[in-house]
C-alpha cells in the first residue's frame, strides 16, 4: 500500500501555518528569541516559542478566555485543524466536521499524537495548591499524555479512535510510523498523525540540569556548538492510502515510502559513539522504500546542537551514505528543539522543501566540527525527490522517515471538501492482516507485595543505582518473563504506561516548588520521561529492535498489545515483549483519594512475551 500524505498543519516558532513557516525558511529567519511567554526565571536561555499567548490561541479556537486549556492541547488543536482543512476533511467555511462516511460505513479516522510534556504547563501552575485545595484537582486527570490527545480528538468530534505515543523527542515521528502501520493493517481509513509539545518550566529546568542548553543561539554540527535551544509547537499530517486519496480525488502532496524505528540500546540520555540506533533506523527506512543511499536528495537531521548528538548522528550518516553524502541540515536553528513535536514539525518542513524545491538552511553553522558532516546553508532551486527526516529520543528511541515527492502533482491543488467524497463500491479496509496465531510464552505480574530485591538476580546494585521502584519493577517483570520464555533478546519492546515514573516527576515538581529553578536532579528528569522504562529494558537486553511507548491512560496496555499483534502479523518480529507499568506515590494517592479514586496500588507492572506460531 502506498501511504499518501494529503494535508499538513504546523505551528512553531517560525510561523503559525504552512505559508508563514515556508516564508521564514526561505528568508532564513530564525524564530528563536528571548523568552516571552514561558513564566521561567531562566530568561538567559533563548527559546523557540510560538509567538502567541494562550488567550490568543483560545480565541482562534473558540474557547472562552477563562477556560483553562493546556498550551500543548491548544497548539495541537490548531495544527490538527489546519491539517484537516488542508486535506479537505474539514471545510474551512463552516469550520465543522460532519461525520465522514464512505459508501459502506463511517470512515475510520484515527488521531495519533506524540507528546511527553502534555498538560505539564497546567500541572505546574497548580501543583502547590493541590495539597490544600480541591479547586484545581481536575488537572490531575488533565496531566497525562493520553488526556491531551483525548482533548484534541473531542474538540473535533470526528475521530473514531485516538492514541498517544511518548518516546521523548522521537514521539511525533513514531506517531507517523504507527499511522502508516495502522493503514496498512486495515485498522484505519485515514490517520491524522503528529505531535504537540509546549514549553514548560519543568522540562526547561530538566534540560538545564543535563547542562545541554546553550545560552547562545544553537549551532548544530558546528565545532563551537554548546547545546540546544528548546522550542515548542505542533504539526500533524493526514495519511491515507493512495487508493483512498484517489477515490476522493484528493491531491497527494507526497508519499511516506519508508520508515525505521530502532533502539540505540546504549544509554538513557547519550547516543552511542557509533550511532548504531540512528544507523539502523535510516537503513530500515531505505530498505522499506527500496532505495539506495545515493537516491536520497536531502536529510533533515535530528541535529540538536549538543556535542554528543551531532557527533553520533554524523557517524551514523557517514556509515549510511559514505562518500555519497546528500545535503544535510538541521532546522532546529529555526524552531529550537521542539522535542516530542520535532518529528512532525520537521516532516512538514521536509514536505515544504520538497514541494517548493529548496534546501532548508542549517542556521548558525560556521566552522566544521571534528568528525562531523558539513551541513548545507540553504539553496534555492533544488529538486528534492526523496528526503530522509531523522528524530532521535532519550533512551535511544531513534526513528527515520522517508518521503517521496508526488512528481505527478506539479502544484498542490486545493483539496475538495469532505462532502465531496465519492461513494465507491469496494470497502476501503481491504488489507486485513494475514491470519497469524499468537501464542503467549510468558507472563509476569508485579504488585506491591512483590519482592523488588529480586532485581539483584539480574543486575548489580551499581547498575540499579538510578532506578526507582517502577524502573526496578518493570525491568524485573520483563527479565523474568523473558527468562521464562527462554529468550535473551526479544525482537521488539512495546510498552504502555499512563504516567511513567511518576515518583521522579513528582520529585522534580516538588524540588521546583521548594527550591525554585535551581540545578535540579538530572536523574529525576531523565527518569520522568515515559520511554525510559522501555529503553531501560532495551539497554539490559541489548535489543536494537522496534521500541515504542504508548501513554493512553487505562488503554495503554490495549494499544501496546494491538501493536504487538501487528508486529507479529507482519512477520517482522518473531517475539515481542509487551508490558504495562505504572506507580503511585503517597501524595498522588492522597490527591486521587479526594477525587474519589481509592485503593490504587503503589506499583503495578505486567510483562508478557508473545510469539507468532
Amino acid at each position: 500500500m502506498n501511504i499518501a500524505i494529503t494535508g499538513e498543519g504546523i505551528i512553531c516558532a517560525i510561523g503559525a501555518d504552512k505559508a508563514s513557516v515556508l516564508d521564514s525558511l526561505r528568508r532564513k529567519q530564525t524564530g528563536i528569541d528571548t523568552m516571552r511567554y514561558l513564566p521561567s526565571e531562566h530568561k538567559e536561555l533563548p527559546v523557540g516559542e510560538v509567538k502567541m499567548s494562550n488567550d490568543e490561541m483560545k480565541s482562534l479556537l473558540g474557547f472562552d478566555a477563562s477556560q483553562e486549556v493546556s498550551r500543548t492541547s491548544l497548539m495541537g488543536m490548531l495544527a490538527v485543524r489546519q491539517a484537516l482543512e488542508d486535506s479537505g476533511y474539514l471545510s474551512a467555511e463552516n469550520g465543522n466536521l460532519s461525520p465522514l462516511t464512505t459508501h459502506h460505513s463511517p470512515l475510520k479516522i484515527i488521531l495519533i499524537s506524540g507528546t511527553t510534556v502534555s498538560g505539564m504547563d497546567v500541572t505546574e501552575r497548580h501543583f502547590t495548591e493541590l495539597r490544600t485545595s480541591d479547586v484545581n484537582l481536575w488537572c490531575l486527570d488533565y496531566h497525562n499524555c493520553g488526556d491531551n490527545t483525548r482533548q484534541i480528538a473531542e474538540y473535533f468530534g470526528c475521530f473514531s479512535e485516538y492514541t498517544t505515543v511518548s518516546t521523548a523527542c522521537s514521539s511525533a515521528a513514531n506517531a507517523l510510523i504507527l499511522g502508516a502501520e495502522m493503514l496498512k493493517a486495515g485498522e484505519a481509513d485515514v490517520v491524522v498523525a503528529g505531535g504537540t509539545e509546549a514549553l514548560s518550566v519543568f522540562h526547561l529546568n530538566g534540560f538545564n540540569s543535563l547542562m545541554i542548553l546553550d545560552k547562545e543561539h544553537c549551532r548544530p554540527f558546528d565545532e563551537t556548538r554548546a547545546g540546544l535551544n528548546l522550542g515548542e509547537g505542533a504539526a500533524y499530517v493526514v495519511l491515507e492510502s493512495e487508493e483512498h486519496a484517489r477515490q476522493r480525488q484528493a491531491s497527494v502532496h507526497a508519499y511516506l515510502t519508508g520508515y525505521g524505528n530502532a533502539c540505540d540500546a546504549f544509554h538513557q540520555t547519550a547516543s552511542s559513539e557509533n550511532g548504531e540506533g540512528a544507523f539502523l533506523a535510516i537503513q530500515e527506512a531505505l530498505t522499506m522504500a527500496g532505495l539506495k543511499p545515493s537516491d536520497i536528495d536531502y536529510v533533515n537531521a535530528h541535529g540538536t546542537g549538543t556535542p554528543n548528538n551531532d557527533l553520533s548522528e554524523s557517524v551514523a550518516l557517514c556509515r549510511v551514505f559514505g562518500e555519497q553524502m546528500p545535503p544535510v541540515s538541521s532546522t532546529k536553528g529555526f524552531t529550537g528543539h521542539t522535542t516530542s513535536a520535532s518529528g512532525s514539525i520537521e516532516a512538514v518542513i521536509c514536505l515544504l522543501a520538497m514541494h517548493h524545491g529548496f534546501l532548508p538552511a542549517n542556521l548558525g553553522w560556521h566552522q566544521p566540527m571534528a568528525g562531523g558532516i558539513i551541513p548545507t546553508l540553504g539553496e534555492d532551486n533544488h529538486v528534492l525527490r526523496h528526503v530522509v527526516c531523522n528524530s532521535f529520543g532519550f533512551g535511544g528511541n531513534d526513528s527515520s522517515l522517508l518521503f517521496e515527492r508526488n512528481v505527478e502533482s506539479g502544484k498542490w491543488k486545493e483539496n475538495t471538501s469532505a462532502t465531496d467524497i465519492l461513494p465507491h463500491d469496494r470497502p476501503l479496509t481491504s488489507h486485513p492482516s494475514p491470519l497469524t496465531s499468537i501464542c503467549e510464552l510468558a507472563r509476569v505480574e508485579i504488585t506491591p507485595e512483590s519482592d523488588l530485591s529480586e532485581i539483584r538476580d539480574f543486575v548489580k546494585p551499581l547498575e540499579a543505582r538510578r532506578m526507582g521502584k517502577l524502573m526496578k519493577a518493570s525491568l524485573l517483570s520483563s527479565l523474568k518473563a523473558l527468562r521464562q520464555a527462554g529468550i535473551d533478546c526479544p525482537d521488539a519492546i512495546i510498552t504502555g504506561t499512563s504516567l511513567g515514573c511518576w515518583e521522579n516527576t513528582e520529585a522534580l515538581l516538588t524540588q521546583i516548588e521548594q527550591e525554585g529553578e535551581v540545578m535540579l536532579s538530572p536523574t529525576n528528569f531523565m527518569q520522568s520521561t515515559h520511554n525510559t522504562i522501555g529503553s531501560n529494558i532495551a539497554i539490559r537486553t541489548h535489543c536494537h529492535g522496534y521500541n515504542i511507548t504508548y501513554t493512553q491512560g487505562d488503554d495503554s496496555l490495549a494499544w501496546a498489545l494491538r501493536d504487538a499483534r501487528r508486529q507479529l502479523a507482519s512477520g517482522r518480529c518473531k517475539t515481542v515483549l509487551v508490558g504495562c507499568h505504572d506507580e503511585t506515590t503517597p501524595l498522588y494517592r492522597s490527591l486521587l483519594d479526594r477525587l474519589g479514586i481509592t485503593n490504587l496500588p503503589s506499583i503495578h507492572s505486567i510483562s508478557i512475551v508473545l510469539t507468532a506460531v
Partner: protein
Amino acid sequence: MEELILELKQQIIEALNLEEMTPDEIDTDAQLFGNDGLGLDSIDALELIVLMEKRYGIKLANPADGKAIFQSVRTIAEYVNENRKK
C-alpha cells in the same frame, strides 16, 4: 583532608544512590568513571556537579570541566579544598 575525603565518599554514595556501598569500599585514588574504575557515567557527573554546587558552593558551568576534577575522590577533595565557598 582525610575528613573531607570521608565526607565526600558519604556524599557521593548518597547523591548517586550507590546502594550497599560503604565509604571503605571506595578507593580514594581509584578512577570514578570509565570501565576500569567504579563505572560512573555522564549522568553521575551531572549529579556530582549538583553536589558541588549545593554542598560546597562551587559552580561548574561546563560539564567538560568535571572531567579533570572528578577523576577520583582525591582529585575532588583537592578541588573542593581550594575552591569551596561554603
